[in-house]
């Protein structure tokens, strides 16, 4: 067998192990280890006396990966962003945000639902956790909406859908992970997520307003707030704006000159403000300890997949599988755009059964080089490319689309966790009803993704303008 065939067999073994329920991180690492042993032993013609040599070399090759790949400054953004998320629950931000949103946009048609969209999106962005955000706002926003006479399916759907906006607006751990796996600038990815994330929130709000204007008795606006009351509601919600703004300013200085520091420092300062706020709101050691343990657990989970997949990637390099896959994809007798759409549809299906982080990490090492090749290569200019984006632009653009795609799975059956969590908090609303209520937002998201594909400049505007990508 040549190395390509070994590569295909090992990928098959890995998929089988994932399918029978092995933890993703270990399935990837085991497949990588197995593949390395196999490839080294094959080089020696499967001589039985050389097996121990092949095993030793493979084990030592794989053994370098965890420490050397994890001890990096760029990756330190991930625990920081996760820490912000867990501290944010203790900072009293959720109710303050909802109250502020209600006072500022409650007067619009479907006002409470619009407020829910913005408050949930804002908190989701900072907490970075779609599912947990939906749980919190299911408790805060749904009772208020029901009191005003909103349809309960719709009220639940808004909360489930708005939670998905977590992944694009900075700070976004999943965009950091993407940037690291595909070896792109973390700052550029974080900046690029801002407009599509905000754009999605505006589309959601427009959808709510449209529904409120066409459906009779949808839900009354809540008005009557004075400007004084509006401004009074802002300080409680301030840390949210601070965290988003500081991360952006640490990537790009709006006042000219050098950026204020690295994204890592920006994230850490954001975390520190949220931490002070949480202390002020009564967080003490028991809550902090809980937050630290949860941070440790989630961080370890993510890092385990990262080193596991990187061991697998080490093997893929020896087997040259990504190169072969790219050649095959680019050799297909159809338009590159159609191929890209098929790839994205495959992600939509995969997302129905797999967690977003696991799915992206497992597939990107092979899929990402193929997409770049499809566009015309790393060095291609926008004018010569297949998708109308430069090589560097394509890396960013594809990342944003794929992450948006992965989040979509949170509100689609069968395992759309956001919908389950809302139904779990509200025993009077069934999961099916939440899925039904979230379906208009699914349609809106599909259109948003189509828009991002057709007009890459929506994604690339900020990185272009500010970082010259």
């Amino acid at each position, binding site marked *: 067998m040549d190395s390509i065939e070994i590569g295909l067999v090992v990928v098959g073994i890995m998929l089988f192990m994932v399918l*029978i329920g092995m933890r993703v991180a270990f399935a990837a690492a085991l497949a990588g280890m197995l593949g390395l042993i196999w490839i080294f032993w094959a080089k020696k013609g499967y001589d039985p006396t050389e097996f121990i040599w092949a095993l030793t070399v493979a084990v030592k090759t794989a053994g370098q990966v965890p420490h050397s790949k994890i001890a990096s400054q760029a990756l330190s953004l991930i625990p*920081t962003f996760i820490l912000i998320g867990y501290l944010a629950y203790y900072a009293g931000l959720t109710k303050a945000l909802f109250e502020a949103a209600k006072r500022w946009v409650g007067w619009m048609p479907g006002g409470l639902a619009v407020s829910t969209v913005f408050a949930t999106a804002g908190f989701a962005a900072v907490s970075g956790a779609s599912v947990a955000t939906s749980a919190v706002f299911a408790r805060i926003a749904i009772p208020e909406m029901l009191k005003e006479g909103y349809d309960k399916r719709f009220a639940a759907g808004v909360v489930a859908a708005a939670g998905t906006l977590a992944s694009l607006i900075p700070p976004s751990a999943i965009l950091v992970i993407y940037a690291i796996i595909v070896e792109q600038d973390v700052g550029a990815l974080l900046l690029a997520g801002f407009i599509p994330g905000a754009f999605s929130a505006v589309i959601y709000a427009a959808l709510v307003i449209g529904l409120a204007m066409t459906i009779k008795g949808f839900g009354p606006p809540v008005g009557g707030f004075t400007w004084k009351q509006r401004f009074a509601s802002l300080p409680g919600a301030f840390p949210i704006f601070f965290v988003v703004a500081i991360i952006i300013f640490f990537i790009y200085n709006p006042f000219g000159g050098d950026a204020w520091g690295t994204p890592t420092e920006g994230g*850490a300062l954001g975390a520190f403000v949220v931490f002070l706020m949480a202390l002020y709101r009564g967080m003490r050691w028991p809550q902090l300890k809980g937050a*630290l343990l949860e941070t440790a657990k989630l961080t370890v989970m993510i890092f385990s997949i990262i080193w596991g997949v990187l061991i697998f990637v080490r093997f893929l390099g020896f087997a040259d599988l990504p190169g072969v896959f790219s050649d095959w994809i680019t050799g297909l007798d159809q338009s590159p755009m159609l191929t890209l759409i098929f790839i994205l549809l495959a992600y939509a299906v995969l997302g129905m059964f797999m967690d977003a982080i696991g799915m992206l990490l497992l597939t990107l090492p092979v899929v990402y080089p193929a997409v770049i090749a499809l566009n015309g290569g790393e060095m291609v200019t926008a004018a010569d490319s297949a998708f109308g984006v430069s090589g560097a632009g394509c890396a960013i653009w594809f990342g944003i689309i794929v992450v948006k795609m992965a989040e979509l799975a949170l509100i689609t059956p069968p*395992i759309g*966790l956001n919908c389950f969590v809302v139904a779990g908090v509200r025993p009077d609303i069934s999961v099916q009803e939440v899925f039904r209520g979230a379906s208009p937002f699914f349609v809106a998201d599909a259109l948003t993704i189509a828009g991002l594909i057709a007009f890459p400049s929506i994604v690339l505007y900020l990185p272009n303008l500010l970082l010259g990508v």
Partner: protein
Amino acid sequence: MSGHSNVLEDGSLLSRLDRGLFKLETILALVGGLAAFSLMLLAVVSVSGRNLFNQPLPGYIDWIEQAMPLIAFVGVSYTQRLGGHIRMDILVGRLRGRTLWITEFTTTFLMLILMILLVWGTWAHFQRAFDFGSPNWSRDSSLDIGLPLWPMKLVVPIAFGVLCLRMALQLWGYGRAIVSGDTSPIAVPLIEDAATTAANEAATVSGFDEETK
């Protein structure tokens, strides 16, 4: 995909070992969490030092790179105990009784073999950096302020070693369940459906807002 799982307990030797190890794992995970927290404090000191006192923190990046292995590895066994490493459970979630425990035993056994190999591999990586004869016992050091790298390289095989113990205990638990055919065995993470996972997720973030208002 699931993150959470619950683990049943009783008075047996296995369960006592499980809880004993869990105490150690919790301490290790807390060390990881505190390392993440100190990363935040470090950045605050670095930024304010640089901008307010014109005094950058020497070796800031070196310290981050030292903290990362603590954050990334020491909690690995804690996460395994709680079933926190994600996996696809759409298939195993449908299995029941002995079929389920045999499948779980098989995947855990393969994971244990992998981890034993990785303890060896990461230990070798540590050994290349460690030398009693060198200053700080160190053959390599960080770029800026020359911190020795071996202590953090040593963290990896230790954390993986604890994980091996955990997996061995889980194998024992699955093995017992295969023999007894028990539907709810102790000392292993039990699979939950999406609704239960969601309910747990909701529970971890509930309560605090209500208490403080």
